[in-house]
């Protein structure tokens, strides 16, 4: 199925450039996509992947360069043009209409109609089929999307992209919030599409995943393509070397740390939107990983814990003292800090500057005689930009202009800056490249070494297994199992997450039945 060099490419991009003000996001990038191939696009945060794909889909107009589809010049005037030419895309940042239902979102722009009149039955059928295809027939089709969790939203987006009959399907980090199960199902779908002759461009920072699904790859660095080839026979290390220009020895570094006394304990905490009360404890210097499927209630637990949702019952004890008050403000006062999984909707104030976003939760260091000094604030932010190697023009740049991964780093920097004692991290590495990821793991380790406590929610099992001391598993809103990391492996974690209990000894592949 993989075309030989003789087969003409479906898509050819050459010399494509795009600048945002002073930022050169794409610098004469070239790219070729064969028919019926899965092509991975790889690169650091801010390398220009999303920008390149937006140019392809017609969402952005390039400053220079040419594109051809099937040998014919292709210059889309907008996303509609792109769709008509057979380019469908899943965007990195969730793009759903929050007031509309799942069904309406899936068919948006592709409504089945007769002379303008909607054919509800036909759409209902199509949506049901597509949701079944992605393995989530249980998603309520009549629920407004705004009420769903990030993971479910991502499934809805995938369903939407699959609904369109396209020749080129672009997926920009479709699995950043998906657990393994769902990712695997997606890969099956991708393979099936490939076999039907659809070409897929796949962007992800999960390199093993990429290696499994892709036929060929292209690596972007600083808006230029620095290498491409067949996936088969290429080592991950080589790709990483291409990406970052140096070798990376350890993907998940472990920092030695020791556990101290208990700093946080939940005793039957029940939030307004939680299915069941939760009890758990967290010690100083502990990294507590939390695993679970989409909608298993991890985020909701964090939100109740942090005072974003109403607490209906139970107690939260921090450093031996029960937590009074009901707002995030009181939580921050007691040393808690939360990283939101929804960075654009909640995590960041997009129209404000990088500096403001980093320091918003603690402006006291920048006060001089009652007044705030913007220059001190900028200086403070600059040091974090350097420390976290954030790709930004400077502390005054609006966060909206940064690439997805760099936005995430800004959100993380805020927690580090506010000197929290208990870190509640909800999918902290979502959309972050391998190099930065390993940096983040290192910081988390450092935090633990300094005696901070970390609650680490993730859908990415290798990182959970790699850096946690303990892993707790959520299933349908309840905490079903908590064990030291040594007693877990990928299979038993999956089993616990899907059926709600895990065998003591790791058995062979339990498939989901829930």
């Amino acid at each position, binding site marked *: 199925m993989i075309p030989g060099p003789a087969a003409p490419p479906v898509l050819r991009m050459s010399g494509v450039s795009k600048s945002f003000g002073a930022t050169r996001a794409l610098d004469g990038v070239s790219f070729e996509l064969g028919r019926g191939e899965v092509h991975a696009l790889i690169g650091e945060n801010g390398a220009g992947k999303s920008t390149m794909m937006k140019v392809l889909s017609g969402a952005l107009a390039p400053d220079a360069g040419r594109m051809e589809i099937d040998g014919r010049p292709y210059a889309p005037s907008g996303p509609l043009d792109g*769709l008509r030419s057979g380019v469908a895309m899943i965007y990195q940042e969730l*793009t*759903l*209409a*929050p*007031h509309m239902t799942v069904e*309406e979102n899936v068919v948006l722009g592709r409504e089945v*109609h007769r002379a*303008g009149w*909607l054919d509800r039955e036909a759409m209902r059928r199509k949506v049901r089929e597509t949701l079944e295809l992605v393995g989530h027939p249980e998603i309520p089709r009549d629920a407004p999307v705004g009420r769903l969790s990030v993971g479910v939203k991502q499934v809805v987006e995938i369903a939407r992209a699959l609904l369109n009959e396209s020749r080129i399907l672009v997926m920009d980090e479709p699995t950043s919030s998906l657990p393994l199960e769902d990712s695997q199902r997606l890969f099956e779908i991708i393979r099936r599409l490939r076999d039907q002759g659809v070409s897929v461009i796949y962007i992800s920072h999960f390199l093993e995943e990429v290696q499994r699904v892709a036929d060929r790859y292209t690596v972007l660095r600083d808006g230029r393509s620095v290498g491409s080839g067949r996936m088969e026979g290429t080592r991950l290390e080589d790709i990483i070397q291409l990406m970052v220009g140096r070798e990376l020895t350890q993907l998940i570094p472990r920092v030695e740390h020791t556990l101290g006394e208990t700093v946080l304990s939940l005793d039957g905490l029940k939030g307004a939107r939680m299915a069941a009360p939760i009890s758990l404890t967290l010690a100083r210097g502990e990294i507590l990983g939390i695993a679970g499927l989409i909608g298993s209630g991890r985020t909701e637990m964090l939100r109740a814990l942090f005072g974003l949702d109403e607490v209906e019952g139970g107690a939260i004890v921090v450093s031996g003292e029960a937590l009074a008050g009901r707002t995030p403000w009181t939580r921050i006062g007691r040393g808690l800090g939360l990283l939101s999984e929804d960075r654009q909707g909640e995590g960041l104030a997009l129209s404000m500057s990088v500096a403001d976003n980093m320091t918003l939760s603690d402006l006291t260091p920048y006060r001089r005689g009652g007044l705030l000094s913007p220059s001190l604030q900028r200086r403070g932010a600059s040091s974090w930009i350097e420390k976290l190697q954030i790709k930004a023009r400077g502390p005054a740049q609006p966060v909206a202009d940064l690439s997805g991964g760099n936005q995430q780093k800004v959100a993380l920097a805020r927690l580090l800056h506010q000197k929290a004692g208990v870190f509640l991290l909800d999918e902290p590495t979502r959309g972050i490249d391998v190099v930065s990821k390993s940096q983040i793991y290192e910081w988390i380790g450092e935090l633990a070494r300094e005696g901070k406590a970390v609650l680490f929610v993730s859908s990415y099992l290798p990182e959970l297994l790699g850096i946690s001391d303990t892993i707790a598993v959520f299933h349908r809103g309840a905490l079903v199992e908590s064990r030291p990391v040594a007693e877990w492996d990928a299979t038993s974690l999956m089993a616990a997450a899907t059926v709600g209990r895990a065998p003591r000894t790791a058995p062979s592949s339990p498939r989901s039945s829930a």
Partner: protein
Amino acid sequence: MSRQHRDRLSKALNFFGPFIGLLLVIALFALIPEVQGRFLRFANLKSVATQSVIVALGALGMTLIIISGGIDLSAASNIALSSVIAAYAVNAGLPPLAAVALGVATGGLVGLANGALVTRLRLVPFIVTLGMMGIARGAAKWIAGNQKIDAPMTWVNELMAKTPHPPWLLLAPGVWIVIVFAVVLAVVLRSTVFGRHVFAVGSNEATARLCGIRTDRVKVLVYALAGLFCGLSGVMEFSRLTVGDPTVAVGLELDIIAAVVIGGGSLSGGEGSILGTMIGVLIMSFLRNGCTMMGWPNYIQEIIIGAIIVIAVTLDRLRHR
């Protein structure tokens, strides 16, 4: 099944919910001994219905605009301009039907201009329509020569006659026109691709664009349609006043917007319904009518209506919890 049961209950509540505010207002006055007997008489209901026509037509278009995430402050000026144009045309000896068409078309043109400015210049609708509010009002005064235009009586003036000409109509033709357009628009919003796209643009414009919806076209269409409704409303205003008055309906845009919001429309877009809006219009009309029949001084009336707006929306929010 308890779940199913609850679902059905909440559906019922959602259906009747919007009426609660209206029923409360009606009950309030129906129980006061002083006006009791007369408040619910058909003659009074008829005049409330007729009084609602102008705001209702404006609010139909405003519902579209608000669902699509916009706002139209020029609605009231547009109504005044259209009524002046219609009067001018009748006065100039045009056949009444042509005058009506001209009035409606004027409204449509103003709406089209709003839409074009919003989409071409990428300005916020608040500003575009604030500017248009002055422009349309100025133009109305200009055309009318700073005076009202006296036009000879024609059948156009029958449109808002409380006692309609073929008596079996029962209600003024204007009321029937509102009812027909409300039904049509409700169906359009629910069951056409266009309606769906209006919601999508209001809910998340970026998403709509990425999904291949021609958002600019949708918006222009929405503003133009709303303009046509304002034009029709202006014709009704002319019909009711029997003169073209450039100073009419000052500040009415806020009443129109309030009606939409009381009816569940959200100013951030993506939410709203025709049924809700119509109920919002009736709530305000019944309040005014009741207060006047009671002979309460205007300031009391102003205070009560202000309070009711807040209360009605609060009830609506509670219902949605």
